[in-house]
């Protein structure tokens, strides 16, 4: 068994199991905790509050004009690299074949050269994100191991992917193996760190929208 076989064989299986079990456990752990009973008389009805909660899952994606002047850099960086990641992960032909083999589906790909350009841009944005985290007083003060390791895991995946596409650094097969291994690492780390925000973002926004609208307050 060579590196690629190992990376996309037993390592991927183990990583995937950890990924699924970890995510499920992290969500179940939250759900198993005590649920607060809200007993105060609502200002808005339950359906209205529920609808606002649902709306909040989307509307929070765009910051209120009041805040945008102060947060525009963070917002722009955040949006840009997330879009870059989606394009590179989901619209690159080899990725579509890889993911498609698990779910039995195919979708159109972007030309490899276009995806490569996006990968370079995304890596550049990632460097900017790290520089900002290290240089911005608030982010530097706030950052912990999770912030840096989560950054490292995703950046590693991007860099090894770009190296594999460009055939640089080592024989293609070795780089491909490392790229898949870095994907395995991402799956393993995912439930333990802040990458979990992808699963939390919509429930948190929905709950906040519900709770605040119930009071008639802005959300």
């Amino acid at each position, binding site marked *: 068994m060579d590196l690629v076989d190992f990376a996309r064989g037993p390592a991927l299986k183990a990583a995937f199991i950890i990924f699924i079990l970890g995510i499920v*456990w*992290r969500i179940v*752990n*939250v759900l*198993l*905790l*005590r*649920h*607060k*009973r*809200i*007993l*105060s*008389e609502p*200002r*808005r009805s339950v359906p209205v509050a529920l609808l606002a909660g649902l709306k*909040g899952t989307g509307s*929070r*994606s765009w*910051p*209120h004009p*009041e*805040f945008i002047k*102060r*947060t525009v850099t*963070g*917002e722009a960086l*955040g949006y840009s690299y997330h879009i870059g990641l989606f394009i590179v992960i989901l619209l690159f032909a080899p990725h579509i074949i890889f993911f498609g083999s698990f779910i039995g589906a195919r979708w159109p790909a972007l030309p490899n050269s276009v995806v490569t350009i996006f990968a370079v841009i995304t890596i550049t944005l990632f460097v900017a994100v790290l520089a900002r985290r290290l240089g*911005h*007083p*608030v*982010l*530097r*003060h*706030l*950052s*912990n191991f*999770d*912030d840096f390791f989560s950054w490292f895991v995703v950046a590693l995946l991007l860099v090894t992917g770009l190296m594999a596409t460009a055939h640089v650094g080592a024989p293609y097969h070795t780089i491909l193996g490392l790229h898949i291994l870095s994907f395995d690492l991402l799956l393993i780390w995912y*439930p*333990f760190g*802040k990458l*979990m*925000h992808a699963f*939390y*973002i919509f*429930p*948190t*926004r*929905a*709950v*906040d*929208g519900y*709770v*605040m609208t119930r*009071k*008639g*307050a*802005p*959300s």
Partner: protein
Amino acid sequence: MNTSPVDFQANLAPEEAKLGESARVAGAMRGFAREIGALSALRLDACVHCGMCADACHFYIVTEDPQYTPVLKVEPFKQVFKREAGAFAPVFRWFGLKAKITGAELARWQHLLYDSCNLCGRCSLMCPMGIDIAELIEQARRGMFEAGLAPKELYEKAAHQRRTGQPEPSDEPYRDKLLAIGRRFNVEIPLDKPRAEVLLTVPRTDIEHYPAAVAALVRVMAHLKADCTFRSDGLVAENYGYYAGGRDWQREISRRLIDQAVACQAKVLIVPECGHAYSALRWEAAELMGKSLPFKVLHITEYLAEALEAGRLRLRTAQVGATAFHDPCQLVRKGGITAAPRQLLRAMGIEPRETVRHIGYNICCGGGGGVFDIERAATLRHRVVEEKFHEIDQTGAQTFLTTCSDCRRTFDDGKKRFNWELTPGSLLELVAEHLQGG
């Protein structure tokens, strides 16, 4: 914890200072544990450390000091959650990834959780993840209180209010002061009626500093011919248990008012011009009591706006010039009262001049959430109020009103500090002065 705040000496009441390390840590663990639930866990787990909440917090905006980043203020709570109740708590414990919290460490957080947070909720509006950071800070205060780390001023006032119903000793009981206000302003104080439709409460701040606002409340209620009463055993609207973070004390202080409302079979309990009192009674009392309240809780502006809509209240035009209005955070941002004050203003022919940051997004006075009472927080809150003054000055207003006596007092204090030209006024007093036929 990944970082420590500036090393402030903890500001403790003698009773709190007596606590040893083990009792302090045990208290904190007990306090935090009571606050951990599905909702707080979701919020604590969801943070991505984007730091944007700092850009919403007036304490950060005026200082640019990263220690005032709102979500950082809940680090002790988060640390206990991760170590004791998080999905991977055993891993954190076994491998020492999250250290056990210490009393000394908690003490350093006192400045951040109390001196530099008004529980105003602006950070919660900003958070792209939708985390109600202000509520997490309130919950973290509860852990601090159990650890004997509430600031001296808040702890002592809460203890006194719990025991006596008023947050501090006074030369004469508030009941007598209330009656004296009635004599001074020539209004008849409805007091201790056995039955009444409306139970009135009064801010301690008004009794001590703004008696005209108390008289205004009585005058307006009399004008509306409301069947109302104050009750000697449940007068004070503020809840220092809430400020200090004492969950049980907060409940007991709320219970005093609830019992009086039940005793006189009130259908409505009116919270006068006090924002945090409104939050404590309107949104938290039922939860703390474990049952719905058998009466409505209304802020005085809501009550008057309803009377306005029903045609029971008619107001004369007020000749007060250009007017700016400050929305107290607990009413607008956390309480949903936006329209009522503006309805009242417009009924007096006043179109309020809004500050650049306004209504739900306005910045605070800087004194709410108990901050005004904390002596050492004065310098910090002065910087916030100065920022607010700039915004109000930009509107070109000649009159400045609010509807929270704590905001008003903070502005008054700021006025003295900065020789500000305007005099903060009460919306309720203005209404009382412009009653049609009154």
